[in-house]
């Protein structure tokens, strides 16, 4: 008997990748997709790597697949925007060996800046796409994707959603099937995408799409469950489970496991017998539009009812309570308590977080606009710092900051823009923005918060850490050298745990009309410190501070640090000794010397 284990969708994808005989895998971390590559990297047969961004991740995977090995690449939904350029052409050229690309979407925006529906990318790039609904399907569909490639020659997409990625269900394990390398043969007509070749590839792609339509109509992953009813449900991915919970066997089902191309014939065959069909899908009305186009608009209830009115919610997750509420137009019986007794509990910078010093100081400055980026430090926007004015996508802090500063200079309004970005995000797509600052003579100030790890997604290695995903020692790329090479003349590196230094350096940068870069370097408090970290920061997080309650006057100034280890108790400040790691920010803030190191006199 095969071994059965509980796995998250992400773990099951990784297992499927291993069983499918994949040799090369790449990704850039991003919730909810991060654990896929982390798990893939545990299999020694697979060469795994954190790429510097999603575009690079896809490009190295394409190279590996053209080179003749089964390759794999994963990213979060917004990462696919970064990788969209190679994506939309690799569908034309194809690859030599199988290539599978996973996108992890976020209905409900648990950890993301938008809710884009990447099923649309399958349509845009004209690539087949699978949509698993549980961990077993994650594993099975990975293997199905590679076998489909072997039949048709088209790279394949697989769309996860947060609940598929991060929910556990039972998976039956198989064995790895080694795939011999496909010998590399030069084929410029196929792989050199000049217009003359690409026009031919475009026509050939159409033939492959026809074959894929045929496959979609026949594959068991698009499955009709006939319960002899006149009402039906069409659902894909996790939504199928929500629908089963709501309707049980009181409806017929068409479970969609392949969303591009959709199985038009099967949809028609399914809908013909029905008086009403519910389309249950998260994010866009992707399946719904296809069902309407097939002529079933009069019986279709999706994001819209047949009369054009809103039916299912336009956004958020379609869990069974939401479906029930919409379909039966009834209030769900819930236990409702006094909401005034609930205070929000947003995430906050950790006790000892090396980003704290910068946000504490910049938040107090006037005439400064902070252009932010994506990472833990985005939390600097929140109280008590209120120290971020805008952000958008990975890397935008520097480039958008440049544009804004130029307009401010024209307007002569005296405002200075400080762009703030983390180490991993700088490597991802901040470097190009900084080059633009230099080239186009912008003069915004760039602060690189280098905590020597990709922290927000749970501590992944990056080009600055000195290690690869598998723990191998590699070149620890020098941020200052990059900054100087990009043409920045004014650069300083400081310790963000030293408030005086932070302030003086900000003064230095703000006093100049030229662009400058301040590298604020200190390892993340949650990081497992490397040998180099230990050597360079021997004192890091080794002490603790306490309040001298006889001296504390309860002025609350230290609470403005936003440190979760600090709180007020009977009108005086108190430091939680289990949380304090001795960063000393509160000690530097206190004006009356009421905070001291534990054990100090």
């Amino acid at each position: 008997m095969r071994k059965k284990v509980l796995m998250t969708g992400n773990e099951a994808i990784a297992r499927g990748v291993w069983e499918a005989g994949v040799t090369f895998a790449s990704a850039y971390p991003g919730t909810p997709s991060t654990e896929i590559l982390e798990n893939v990297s545990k299999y020694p047969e697979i060469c795994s790597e954190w790429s510097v961004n999603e575009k690079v991740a896809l490009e190295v995977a394409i190279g590996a697949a053209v080179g003749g090995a089964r390759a794999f690449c994963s990213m979060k939904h917004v990462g696919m925007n970064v990788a969209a350029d190679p994506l939309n052409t690799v569908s034309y050229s194809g690859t030599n060996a199988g290539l599978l690309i996973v996108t992890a979407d976020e209905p409900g925006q648990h950890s993301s800046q938008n809710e884009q529906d990447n099923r649309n990318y399958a349509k845009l790039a004209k690539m087949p796409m699978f949509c698993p609904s549980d961990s077993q399907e994650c594993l099975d569909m990975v293997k199905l994707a590679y076998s489909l490639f072997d039949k048709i020659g088209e790279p394949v997409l697989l769309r996860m959603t947060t609940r598929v990625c991060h929910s556990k269900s039972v998976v039956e394990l198989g064995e790895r099937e080694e795939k011999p390398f496909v010998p590399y043969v030069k084929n410029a007509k196929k792989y050199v995408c000049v217009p003359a070749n690409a026009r031919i590839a475009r026509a050939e792609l159409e033939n492959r799409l026809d074959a894929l339509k045929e496959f979609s109509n026949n594959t068991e992953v698009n499955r009709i469950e006939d319960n002899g009813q006149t009402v039906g449900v069409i659902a894909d991915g996790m939504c199928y489970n929500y629908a089963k919970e709501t309707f049980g066997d009181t409806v017929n089902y068409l479970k969609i496991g392949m969303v591009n191309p959709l199985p038009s014939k099967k949809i028609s065959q399914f809908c013909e017998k029905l008086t009403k069909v519910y389309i249950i899908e998260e994010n866009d009305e992707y399946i719904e539009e296809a069902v309407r186009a097939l002529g079933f608009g009069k019986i279709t209830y999706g994001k819209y009812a047949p009369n054009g009115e809103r039916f299912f919610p336009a956004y958020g997750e379609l869990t069974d309570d939401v479906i029930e509420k919409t379909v039966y137009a009834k209030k769900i019986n819930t236990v409702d308590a006094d909401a005034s007794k609930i205070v929000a509990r947003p995430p906050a910078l950790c006790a000892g977080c090396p980003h704290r010093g910068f946000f504490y100081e910049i938040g107090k400055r006037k005439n400064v606009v902070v252009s932010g980026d994506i990472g833990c430090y985005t939390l600097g926007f929140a109280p008590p710092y209120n120290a971020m004015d805008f952000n958008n996508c990975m890397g935008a802090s520097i480039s958008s900051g440049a544009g804004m500063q130029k307009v401010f200079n024209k307007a002569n309004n005296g405002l200075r823009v400080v762009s703030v970005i983390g180490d991993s995000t700088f490597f991802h797509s901040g470097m190009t923005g900084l080059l633009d600052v230099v080239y186009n003579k912008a003069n915004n100030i760039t602060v690189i918060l280098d905590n020597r790890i990709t922290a927000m997604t749970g501590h992944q290695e990056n080009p600055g850490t000195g290690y690869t995903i598998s723990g191998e020692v590699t070149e620890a790329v020098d941020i200052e050298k990059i900054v100087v090479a990009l043409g920045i003349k004014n650069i300083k590196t400081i310790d963000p745990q030293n408030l005086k230094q932070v302030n003086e350096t900000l003064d230095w940068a703000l006093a100049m009309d030229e662009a400058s870069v301040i590298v604020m370097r200190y390892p993340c408090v949650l990081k497992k410190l490397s040998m180099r970290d230990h050597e360079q920061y021997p004192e890091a997080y080794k002490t603790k501070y306490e309040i001298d309650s006889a001296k504390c006057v309860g002025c609350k100034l230290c609470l403005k640090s936003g440190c979760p280890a600090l709180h007020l108790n009977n009108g005086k400040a108190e430091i939680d000794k289990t949380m304090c790691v001795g960063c000393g920010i509160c000690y530097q803030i206190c004006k009356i010397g009421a905070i001291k190191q534990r054990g100090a006199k």
Partner: protein
Amino acid sequence: MKSILMVGVGGQGTILASKLLTQGLLAEGYNIKMSEIHGMSQRGGSVVTHIRFGEEQVYSPVIGKGKADVIIAFEKMEALRYLDHLAPNGTVVVNDLEVPSISISTGDKEYPQGIIEELQKHAKTIVINAGETAEKIGSQKVVNMVMLGAVIGKMGLENIDWKKLLTENVKPDFIEMNLKAINAGVELVK
């Protein structure tokens, strides 16, 4: 089919507790699905784990509003935050612990008073002090195992071989203490 919602604050060890629980249920032959949102867990945010199991097929890994049989709250304000997920005849097991959120620490807001009373007004509520129990056993670190014990006791899952699962999941030196904590948690809800 049973639905358990486990709620708490990042860093309280809800993830290990739910991992052990699901492994135990799987070993016992139940169908099971579990879902957690943990992107922010290390940064002091609110964390929630959904666990659904039964003899019959389990489809959704997510517990909708009004559908949880039991809410196990590692912190009392979190119990109130997720109370709308409780089925009208469901039970709340709440750890009598206050963890201030950042706006409370910074002095902008007060930790709300009367939470336990509010819970009791609306739902069957079992109040336990897992911290005190854990301290007696030897360490605050086993609070999560006391809470796991409370789930086990409440759901009648004492027959599962928890010692075996602990052996597979924690360091040898800590097995006994964790097992004691689980047993103590079971007693708290009896």
